[in-house]
């Protein structure tokens, strides 16, 4: 085992390297004449935020939420609906107007994601185990069917967001510009998770995952800390959903479907639950696998399953475990 200082320095170096790589990526993509890579990595970063938010409850808190896509979808619809009302100049709820402003629409997406998590979490967190999994799933599916039935917002077909939100004078249509906006937010969100993980709150959360009986016995009310983590996670998913609406310029109930929740869970577990960068590796890994396999065969999902199982079985800690293995850090 190397002394903590050395590990800390090495971790800082690795993070710095990752950041430089991500900053240089769009330019390298242009140079190598694969400009589509920028858009692909944008997608990975958005999913990385969503997976990181799920990791907060699933990995750090040990709450197996199977309905996380609900908050992701709500973030997406927040941007989509605000945009539609701005475009048609129709008042929303009889008073508020829509908006195309990134700096308004995104905070709304984050807050609504958090509010939905507050309501769903307040009820679901009264249960544990399989019951908790089923209740979170049920709530998410309820929201899915609610949005399917909202014909005014496109119902099943979803809602087209004709233009990306406006942010200062930036040309958001430009893939590179939008990439850097997403990268900045992703970096900020991962920094936020990093601080949380080591904070007093994070210590409580990690203790709850391992032994909630012990946590209660030292006088900490477990429920409210779980709920706070759930809300923070809902806000992160709202952020990711709002970014997705901007990226794809389209939202649909599929964003909330249980398969999307499952996909986020796979990313977290594939990357290494409860690790800081696991969700990033997991999102990048899953999207890469999907892209490579679907270019190679039509029945790519048939091959995806076994590959995922192998990685999860053989590398404890998922892709984070694999990265640690290669960098010679054996813990």
């Amino acid at each position: 085992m190397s002394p903590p200082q050395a590990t800390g320095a090495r971790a800082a170096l690795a993070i710095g390297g990752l950041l430089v790589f991500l900053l240089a990526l769009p330019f390298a993509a242009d140079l190598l004449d694969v400009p589509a890579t920028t858009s692909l990595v944008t997608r990975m970063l958005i999913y990385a935020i969503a997976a990181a938010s799920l990791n907060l409850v699933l990995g750090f808190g040990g709450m197996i939420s199977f309905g996380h896509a609900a908050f992701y979808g709500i973030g997406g619809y927040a941007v989509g609906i605000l945009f539609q009302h701005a475009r048609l100049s129709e008042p929303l709820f009889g008073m508020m107007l829509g908006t195309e402003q990134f700096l308004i629409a995104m905070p709304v997406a984050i807050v609504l994601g958090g509010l939905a998590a507050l309501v769903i979490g307040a009820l679901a967190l009264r249960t544990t185990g399989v019951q908790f999994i089923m209740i979170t799933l049920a709530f998410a599916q309820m929201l899915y069917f609610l949005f399917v039935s909202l014909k005014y917002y496109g119902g099943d077909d979803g809602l087209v967001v004709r233009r990306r939100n406006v942010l200062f004078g930036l040309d958001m249509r430009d893939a590179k510009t939008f990439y850097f906006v997403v990268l900045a937010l992703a970096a900020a969100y991962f920094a936020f998770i990093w601080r949380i993980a080591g904070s007093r709150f994070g210590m409580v959360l990690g203790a709850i995952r391992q032994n909630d009986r012990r946590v209660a016995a030292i006088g900490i009310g477990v429920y409210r800390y779980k709920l706070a983590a759930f809300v923070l996670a809902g806000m992160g998913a709202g952020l990711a959903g709002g970014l997705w609406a901007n990226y794809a310029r389209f939202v649909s109930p599929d964003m909330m479907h249980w398969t999307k929740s499952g996909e986020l869970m796979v990313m977290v577990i594939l990357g290494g639950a409860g690790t800081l960068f696991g969700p990033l590796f997991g999102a990048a890994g899953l999207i890469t696998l999907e892209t490579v396999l679907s270019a190679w065969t039509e029945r790519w999902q048939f091959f995806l399953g076994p590959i995922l199982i192998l990685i999860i079985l053989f590398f404890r800690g998922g892709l984070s475990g694999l990265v640690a293995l290669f960098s010679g850090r054996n813990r």
Partner: protein
Amino acid sequence: MKAPLLRIDGLVKRFGGLTATDCLSLDVAEGEVHALIGPNGAGKTTVINQLTGELHPDGGRILLDGTDIVGLPVHARVRMGLARTFQIVQLMGSYTALEHVALAVQANAGHSFRFIGDARADERLTGPAREILSRFGLATRADRPVAALSHGERKQLELAVALAMKPRLLLLDEPMAGLGAAESAQMVELLQSLKGQFALLLVEHDMDAVFSLADRISVLVGGRAIASGSVAEIQADPAVRIAYLGEGDA
């Protein structure tokens, strides 16, 4: 006379057809060591779990400082000064000994809705935690994950965590169980040195430990207190000798 710190009054707990706590009444005075002894399955742990709030009684009252706490959740009772250790240690496998005690210090310092500062580098938490660990001779073990500690060290850590909470009443469920002779003696000595700082309800099978620590002993058999009194009284009680003490050497 002063009201006792803890008063259990007509406590009843049934598991299906089994009455695990059978109309039990007992009290613990401020600063007193009250030992609760009895054969396996007598219902000792069940009493403790009702006191902490992990189990809800089917009848009776539990008064802490005159207030009925039966309706309160576990953490609220802890905040009133009720701390416990577990018969089977309950710890967080990946946390170090220091992190356990620091978390107790943190819980005692108020809410934990602090999302930014680095808790592991917070002197206000680690300072007192290290001090408590060294009192237990665990200073050199502070930075080990509990998974790497011996059974005896984990038992000691449970007690260290409880003490970090500055309890008024401490419930110890078999603190010596599974300890070697030397470790047991060390534990008794430690408890001896802390005597008077808080009230203690001690569940223990090690009779030497009980006799040297207790001010008062209650004997539980089948969920019912069959005797209660000083060490000498209990040692002399014929019913106790038959039901419990006599088991091995009659």
